[in-house]
């Protein structure tokens, strides 16, 4: 009995140690003091904390990291930089996770988590100027209007919030829960600002019979839509482009409303606790340059803040559709696009609680 026991335990321990040592060589195991071979050049490590889909193989993170390392190597031949991408699950966990994972750049705040981030941590000023949606600490790197996506030929698209109450949408709209999803809260805030006071509750009650489901996250909700369980989903104006380019499916469309759409903006910032602060500042500069913006646009399926990156691409068409002054009857910097100004689509905790209570009061 003793021999197989020993063999089995040794086998298990061997497999585990093998994996750990192999990875120690590949990725560095500081816990075991088995660090990667030291290169001849002086190497600095830049730690970037972002949500998981941003740093996945198909997200923009790995490509951006390689591009930055290459560009830095060209600029400073005597030294090298290693960009280490750290995941924080979703954007909601960035603040919580940066308390325990030291990082030089945090990437993925939206306009709702930005005020909270400002309140609960210190941030360095970045050196990038004159970009849409940014302030001196939080640099916007992509954005997208939010609204409803549908499949052409399956249903007549909605043209306004009021139109969503039409019986043709009975049990067909997939929404996200504002308590756990940022686009979900965008929708609630959109309804509240277009139909203030009692009208919000009234609207939501009427909408109830048309709602197919309220999911905890955008991905679940969008999954229900792509599986054909729902015909209309709350999503980004850029979502149809994914289907068009990746799946060669032209049926997906974004319903452009006459009233302004809310926008989702993603920000990057440098925490005051950064170790490689100069490198972090360079990285922020880099992600707002057209080449990096193009990568973000094509892999994160969002609009670039630096419009040069979108020129000649279908992303520019979306921007054009949203800035069609003849259609929406407005021009000028503030309302260049048919989107609500950012000041409107952010809420403090009290407003948020109040809206969420309204939501919970209407039993979907």
């Amino acid at each position, binding site marked *: 009995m003793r021999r197989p026991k020993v063999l089995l335990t040794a086998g298990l321990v061997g497999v585990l140690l093998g994996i750990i040592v192999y990875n120690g060589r590949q990725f560095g195991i500081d816990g075991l003091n088995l660090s990667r071979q030291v290169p001849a050049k002086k190497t600095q490590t830049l730690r970037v904390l972002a949500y998981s889909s941003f740093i*996945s193989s198909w997200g923009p993170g790995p490509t951006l990291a390689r591009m930055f390392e290459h560009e830095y190597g060209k600029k400073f031949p005597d030294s090298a930089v290693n960009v280490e991408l750290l995941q924080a699950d979703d954007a909601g966990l960035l603040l919580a996770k940066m308390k325990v994972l030291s990082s030089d750049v945090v990437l993925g705040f939206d306009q709702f988590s930005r005020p*909270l981030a400002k309140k609960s941590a210190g941030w360095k000023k970045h050196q990038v100027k004159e970009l849409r949606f940014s302030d001196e600490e939080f640099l916007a790197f992509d954005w997208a209007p939010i609204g409803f996506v549908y499949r052409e030929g399956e249903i007549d698209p909605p043209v306004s919030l009021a139109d969503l109450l039409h019986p043709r949408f009975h049990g067909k709209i997939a929404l996200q829960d504002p308590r756990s999803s940022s686009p979900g809260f965008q929708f609630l805030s959109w309804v509240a600002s277009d139909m203030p006071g009692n009208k919000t509750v009234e609207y939501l009650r009427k909408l109830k019979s048309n709602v197919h489901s309220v*999911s905890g996250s955008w991905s679940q909700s969008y999954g229900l839509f792509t599986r054909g369980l729902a015909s209309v989903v709350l999503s980004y104006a850029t979502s149809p482009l994914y289907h068009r380019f990746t799946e060669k499916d032209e049926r997906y469309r974004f319903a452009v409303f006459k009233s302004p759409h809310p926008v989702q903006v993603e920000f990057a910032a440098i925490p005051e606790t950064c170790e490689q602060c100069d490198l972090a500042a360079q990285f922020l500069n880099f992600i707002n340059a057209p080449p990096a913006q193009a990568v973000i646009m094509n892999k994160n399926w969002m609009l670039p803040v630096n419009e040069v990156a979108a020129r000649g691409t279908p992303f520019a068409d979306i921007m054009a559709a949203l800035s069609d002054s003849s259609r929406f009857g407005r021009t000028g910097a503030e309302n260049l696009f048919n989107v609500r100004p950012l000041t409107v689509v952010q809420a403090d905790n009290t407003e948020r609680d109040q809206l969420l209570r309204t939501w919970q009061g209407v039993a979907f």
Partner: protein
Amino acid sequence: MTTRRHAVFWWVLVVMFLFPYGFSLLISGGSLRLPVGFFELCVRSFSQALGSTATTLGLGILGAAFLIKAGQTAKRLSFWEGIALLPAIAPSSAMVFGFMDMLPNFRGVWAVTIAHALISMGFVSVILARAIRDRIGASLELAWVEGASRWVMWRRAVLPSLKSDLFAVSVTIFFSSLASFSVPLLLGGSQAVTFEIAIHHAIRLENAWDIAAALSVFQLSLLVGAVALLRFGQENKSVLARHRESVSRLGIGRVVGSFLGFPVVVFGSAVVLFSLFRHPIEGWAQLQTSGLFENLDALWLTLQGGLATSTLAGVLTSTLLLIFVSLYPSDSKMRWMSAYVAPSTAITGFATLAIGWGHPPSFFWDVLRISVGAAFLFAPVLWRLRWEGELRKLNGQVQVARTLGANHRLICLRILFPQLWPTFFWSGGLVSFWMWGDYALGSIAASRSMTVGMLAKSLMESYRLEAASLILAFSIMAGAISYRLFTLGGLRVGR
């Protein structure tokens, strides 16, 4: 081992298990704040959890009757148990998506309750069927020979003898329903509230650790209440035990078995399989366009991460339970363990970030964090399901050995460990199975995407639901292989 050293070890374990609770207090700076609508949260969470528990138990008993009827040979039994267990180990979103496909207009508290029942009833069926066979199989056959009716046997023999098992299973289902997240959100709508949703909301949207800590402390007080309640459960000390002679009792299939429970065992798995394999061709196409196969390093890291975390989590959980058992826990300590539930997955995940604090992120620390977190979450569940029963069975032998002067080492090496090896490997296998599909814990505890479950979640967040479904199906297969290897190890060592 001296009594003093026992006490030291015991307190080390207590501190370890209470650490996730303490961590939330530490991060909140000791301040506590209950969320707005706390009373409503309790009422809704508890009523939903009670409903889910009652439905699961009712259907679980029916499923147990089917397993007893259909599992007349070892092969058949393994097959039906596998089918019954699938919904409990598959990701809950697979169940919910399939459920919505099949019953598109069924929503609300009842839908949540039934979805929870679909997820857990097979698991409960397996446990109850095993308990019936092992504990009262012989008496039931005798009663049948004497002419007792099926109804009388269920009412007078089966249900009373399962009282403590039903209680242990109820506690597990109740707490897992309180901690449920996707199911109530998707099927219950805006009225659905559970503690996990409230904690999620506090941490992710408001960064309000004081609320998360307050909810954790409340959970801790529930734990104390459960300890007191479990005194009731101790009246009947026969709890779950490993089945050794189950298949040999052919007669009990006729006595208490019933084909009525067939849908209970099959329906949940059918929903999950339907959901996972609905669009395999689209899934494969999405995987190819994702660029996953072009970045083989990342894929390789994920596979290694999955293998390392699932193996280490299984070994750590079982080792923790083995250490606990080797301390000869008293009745009150066993009750403590039976009542323990880790706080929310999110809080437990964050607490594990204290491991390797100050060290740069690395594969080693990530694997260790996820595995320790899994041990916190699964050890109490497995204790209630099997370890407690095993230990109680061995208590008599331990007492005799101690009376005869055997020392601690001898008792562990000659009595406890040899008889607990199969349970050790069974628990390890089960945890390993669960961990292949984990993303909730891994995505908080790890600094990079390194498990198969996290890969699937990330694919889902990038428009690739069908690819994620294929990956999840793979994680179930990998989990099954892992479980089999562990249990084979148990059989080999136990010989």
